[in-house]
């Protein structure tokens, strides 16, 4: 038990300064794009009533939620997913007149993932919800936003796969299958289990072309052509409608100029009771799971008292950053560039100069190690601080480049004059 004091529990972790700076930098880049598209950031509580997350459409199974009681006996749940709380908030707060609503969020979610699987139990999601409109334009806007968010984050090799749940639902309807049979097929198609699917379909009473189409479903992914391929094999109204919508969304995405990152997967059939239209996922190299999950969920807000269509996505920030590291994409963020060293006499000059340098955009650390210059130089080297400004007395200032050891002698007045002229006044 003593050991518990030293370690974090499985699935949660500390973020050290460098990691935290990288995460915040990526988050900042993404947030800028969200804002530029008119999405306002919101926050929801870290824990909520269990009922917000547990519904029949259940996006997360109850066994994966962290649950506890409050003093009145209500069950509370650590935020297991970002979307239901935002749907709750939007349904309770806004009226029809205020639609469409564009909201975005950055927050941690908590899931009781299996032990020893190397999966985080607390992880950060960055996402958007576009509420109040069901149209191809809305779907395309959100997908284009996902693409632009990934691009601004810094990755270039990725792919957004788009599917449409109505296509599968239409096919199942046409085949006249029971819910149970539909569920079985859904699972097999989702796993691209060609073999299992063939065995299952053989046992069901399905006619020729439809059978062929269902068997083909797990293979119906790739470029635009899959839509035509699928179109040729069905006469079901719902399915055709779904294909036309996909086609139209793709045309809008071309207008956004992001078609290079788009592909299709008609066999993407997960969480059918949650998603009600378009569904998409983002993939990149260096991670075995998707980095973006999104889709249309027109039924969710109704659960919270106001029927409104909605579409959105979440970027799995930890997965994205992990993938960027493995792809060796540098993420430059800020670091301390200047160490301020001073004597008792020059304290006043040093502190006021420090503030001026900060206001000029520099990252300045006040030395707490005293006047010993060598001590300060080795500290700066250890911490990777490139420059030292040493206030020898009230007049004389030494600028030391800790990498080249180049030293420039100057005065307080000179220094201030330079600072007001350039962004990096010391030339260090």
């Amino acid at each position, binding site marked *: 038990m003593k050991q518990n004091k030293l370690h974090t529990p499985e699935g949660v972790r500390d973020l050290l300064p460098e990691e935290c700076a990288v995460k915040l930098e990526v988050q900042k880049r993404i947030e800028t794009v969200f804002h530029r598209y008119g999405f306002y950031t919101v926050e929801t509580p870290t824990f909520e009533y269990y009922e917000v997350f547990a519904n029949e459409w259940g996006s997360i199974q109850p066994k994966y939620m962290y649950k506890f009681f409050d003093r009145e006996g209500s069950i509370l749940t650590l935020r297991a997913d970002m979307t239901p709380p935002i749907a709750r908030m939007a349904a309770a707060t806004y009226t029809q007149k205020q639609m469409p609503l564009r909201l975005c969020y950055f927050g941690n979610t908590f899931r009781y993932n299996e032990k020893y699987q190397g999966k985080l139990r607390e992880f950060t999601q960055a996402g958007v919800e576009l509420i109040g409109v069901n149209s191809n334009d809305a779907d395309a806007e959100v997908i284009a936003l996902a693409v632009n968010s990934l691009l601004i984050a810094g990755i270039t090799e990725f792919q957004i796969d788009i599917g449409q749940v109505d296509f599968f639902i239409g096919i199942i309807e046409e085949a006249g299958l029971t819910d149970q049979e539909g569920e079985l097929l859904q699972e097999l198609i989702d796993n691209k*289990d060609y073999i299992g699917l063939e065995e299952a379909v053989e046992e069901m009473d399905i006619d020729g072309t439809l059978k062929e189409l269902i068997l083909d479903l797990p293979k119906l992914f790739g470029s635009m052509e899959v839509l035509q391929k699928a179109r040729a094999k069905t006469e079901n109204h719902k399915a055709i409608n779904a294909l036309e919508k996909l086609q139209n969304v793709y045309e809008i995405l071309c207008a956004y100029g992001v078609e290079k990152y788009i592909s299709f997967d008609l066999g993407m059939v997960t969480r059918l009771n949650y998603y009600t239209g378009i569904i998409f996922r983002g993939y990149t190299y*260096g991670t075995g799971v998707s980095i973006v999950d999104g889709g249309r969920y027109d039924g969710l807000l109704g659960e919270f008292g106001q029927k409104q269509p909605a579409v959105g996505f979440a970027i799995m920030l930890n997965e994205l950053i992990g993938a960027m590291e493995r792809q060796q994409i540098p993420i430059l963020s800020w670091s301390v560039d200047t160490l301020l060293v001073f004597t008792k006499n020059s304290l006043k000059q040093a502190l006021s100069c420090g503030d001026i340098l900060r206001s000029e955009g520099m990252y300045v650390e006040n030395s707490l190690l005293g006047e010993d210059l060598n001590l300060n130089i080795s500290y700066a080297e250890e911490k990777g601080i490139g420059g030292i400004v040493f206030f020898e007395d009230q007049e004389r200032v030494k600028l030391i480049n800790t990498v080249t050891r180049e030293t420039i002698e100057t005065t307080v007045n000179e220094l201030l004059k330079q600072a007001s002229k350039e962004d990096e006044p010391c030339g260090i």
Partner: protein
Amino acid sequence: MRYLTFALAKGRLAEQTMELFESAGYPCEQMKEKSRKLIFVNEDLKLKFFLAKASDVPTYVEYGAADIGVVGKDTILEERRNLYEVLNLGFGSCRMAVAGPIDSKEKLNKSCNLRVATKYPNIASDYFYHKKKQTVEIIKLNGSVELAPIVGLSEVIVDIVETGSTLKENGLVVLEEICPISARMVVNRVSMKMQYERITKLIEAVKEKLG
């Protein structure tokens, strides 16, 4: 070009897989040499192979440490990983079955205190709880499962049966069949999308050799 990485279940399965891959145009000469290497590379085609314990193959593939894996259906069912299962390679064929002494047959159908010993607790609970709708007690063992009914640890076992000769020698028989088993090719969900053309080409080439 990126490497395409394969995780193969150690042993006979890996040998058969490499024979098949070679005939389909995906050879790896390094694997034929005797060495202590852990990773075998075909530089021309940018392929990497490694051998792993069968039950770890789905894990390597799920996390994307390997793009493609070859492993028995028994392991796939037991490990329940999030993968694409794309091809039945046909070899390594056997059955998952419930076995025990012949007089356990009666108990199997009514006893609610049935004890089941197995290396495959997930498959066993799936079969008894969901398919047979029967509550049983599952005991996880790590090997020589046939021992369990003989020494009275359990009434029946759930295990893979190839010819049935091991069972017979120990006075056990197959009581119920659960499902057929054979080697499968599995693919990581992201790799399937990001390396779509290469992987599809590989699947088609292997499929053609299988006839």
